[in-house]
């Protein structure tokens, strides 16, 4: 696979492990062991069992008829919103918790933006009986309150992070600092295809169950395993990595990655890394990154906490550079219209993150014969406060949109 990671941990020019010595032994241990552990038959048996009976996989591939009519193409939704805890994030945390146990770790840390990864981590920690600490930007603890309550109910400690932008980037910094201070008993469950090698590849492998299922399901429904398009939103890029994974080397499948434009790519309030980013290092990985000319990381903006990140995973930077994936950026307003659209057309309230992918359908030039698989990465329950606030504001004249 020419789009997969090479033996040095790079996707083309992107990837690697740019970490201080304090993290080296842990990351190196992971690098040496992850493939061996993951593909051990006993591990796979336990993982597959949990994915089936606990997570509820396979998630349905749903032919969205009214949505299809609207866009005049055949659109399937991959229903990650129906997975346990309401998003794709659990695919990765179930895998990593089993890995952490095999590494003999007793304490789990995680960062979270939207709170979905935090909830998914707190969930598997409860399942495994391990201590769980989740770092979350203070702003995100406010805009994703229900998820804070869920994590606490699940027994996790949620630490509000007040440094920097007080969102996902700084939550990740703080989780890394925790790992530096607790190298022996702690495993860090990163929530996306970011971080030092082997994290991007490991998380992509755990998420690849999405495209593995899509292939089978599409074959049953359409008599062909490959759609014309696979569409997914990209924050760090884990749901997109999972949705793309088994199609990377199928050139007839067009891959569509959708980023958050925030208020607009030229406004200074954006998270559209493929447009605004340049080569740099963030969280231990060389990738596209929003930064100043001096190499200081820029604070991003998106209405969706899960896409509010100034980088993208190195795999996606490579897909962007090679043109293998086409990138769109969708504004806060377009995404919110996407939320309302899917709610009204299909009776499904999507996460605001996933609604970015939905809004991109307007930009794509679809033909009636096109088969589109859109990865519905999560459900919108966690976003109700933001959604209600948005709807209230647009109903008022001159209403300014707020977070």
């Amino acid at each position, binding site marked *: 696979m020419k789009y997969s990671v090479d033996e040095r941990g790079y996707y083309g020019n992107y990837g690697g492990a740019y970490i201080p010595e304090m993290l*080296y032994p*842990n990351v190196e241990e992971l690098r040496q062991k992850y493939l061996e552990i993951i593909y051990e038959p006993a591990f796979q048996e336990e993982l597959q069992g949990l994915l089936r009976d606990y997570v509820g996989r396979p998630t349905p591939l749903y032919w969205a008829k009214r949505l299809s009519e609207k866009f005049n193409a055949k659109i399937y939704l991959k229903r990650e919103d129906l997975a346990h805890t309401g998003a794709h994030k659990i695919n990765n945390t179930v895998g990593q918790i089993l890995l952490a146990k095999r590494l003999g770790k007793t304490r789990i840390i995680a960062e979270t933006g939207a709170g979905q990864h935090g909830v998914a981590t707190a969930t598997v920690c409860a399942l495994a009986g391990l201590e769980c600490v989740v770092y979350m930007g203070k702003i995100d603890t406010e805009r994703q309150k229900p998820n804070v309550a869920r994590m606490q109910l699940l027994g996790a400690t949620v630490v509000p992070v007040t440094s920097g932008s007080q969102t996902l980037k700084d939550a990740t910094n703080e989780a890394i600092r925790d790992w530096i201070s607790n190298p022996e008993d702690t495993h860090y469950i990163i929530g996306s295809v970011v971080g030092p090698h082997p994290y991007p590849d490991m998380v992509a492998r755990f998420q690849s169950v999405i495209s593995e299922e899509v292939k089978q399901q599409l074959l049953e429904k359409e008599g062909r395993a490959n759609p014309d398009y696979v569409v997914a939103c990209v924050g760090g890029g884990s749901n997109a990595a999972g949705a793309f994974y088994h199609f990377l080397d199928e050139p007839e499948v067009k891959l569509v990655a959708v980023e958050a434009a925030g208020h607009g790519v030229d406004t200074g309030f954006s998270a559209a890394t493929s447009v605004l980013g340049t080569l*740099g*290092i963030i969280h231990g990985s060389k990738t596209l990154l929003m930064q100043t000319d001096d190499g200081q*990381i820029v604070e991003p903006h998106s209405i969706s906490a899960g896409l509010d990140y100034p980088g993208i995973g190195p795999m996606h930077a490579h897909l962007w550079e090679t043109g293998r994936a086409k990138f769109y950026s969708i504004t806060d307003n377009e995404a919110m219209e996407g939320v309302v659209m899917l709610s009204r057309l299909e009776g499904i309230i999507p996460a605001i993150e996933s609604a970015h992918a939905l809004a991109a359908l307007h930009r794509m030039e679809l033909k009636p014969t096109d088969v589109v698989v859109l990865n519905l990465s999560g459900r919108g329950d966690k976003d109700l406060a933001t959604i209600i606030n948005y709807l209230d504001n647009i109903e008022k004249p001159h209403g300014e949109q707020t977070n």
Partner: protein
Amino acid sequence: MENRLTKLFREKRENLLNVYFTAGFPELESTGVVLKTLEAAGADIVEIGMPYSDPLADGPTIQQSNTVALRNGMSIKKLFSQIEAVRPELEVPIVLMGYLNPVLQFGIERFCEEAARVGVDGFILPDMPLHEYEEEYQPLFLKYNLSVIFLVTPQTSEDRIRKIDALTNSFIYLVSSASTTGNKVGGDAKQVQYFQRIQDLNLKNPKLIGFGISDRSSFQLACKYAEGAIIGSAFIKIIQQPENLEENIRGFIREVKAPEAVSA
């Protein structure tokens, strides 16, 4: 090759005091004043932090100083001009510490060239991978006569420590415990065992113990097991107030080095 660092270690291999401060802190133009005062007060090495928006290995005190320095308008370019302005008056070895991203954006060759030109002697780039240094940057650092300093932690394997010892020609930065900067050195049995273990390796390079060295007693403890120590966060706290900057620095260094001064 010889620079001020290697010369220092030829002449002195005990009780070495290396003081870290963040460039452009507490005020943009503090850099030169702090440098001069540190040399006059008796610091053996000065380590200047290049502020970064996301200093992963640093605790709250140094993070905060980075934020303030960036807000003050600090940049690598500015730092080079500040060093250039005071270098003729100074002898003390200068080491730049910072994260790799701003250096890459500046351009690694240009960074080495400018550093050498203004009189910098070495770099600490904690997130620069060892193999990348070996494969890509080493010839450049050698060309410009710049030393490279790597970190060693309680978890670093002996093989890796030996490799680091072979790759560097100045000193090894011995991280006192598993922690970000700013935590206290307790000197508990486990820590002493670690210092002892490293001492017994008989490395060719001197070792300076850093992270959590904050005062005379922790400095003395470190000097028992290594050739010297690095003070960072504790010094940042001393220079937080722009008022009486020089006096505060002199007082702090005098106190840390007190026993030496008494015996001299």
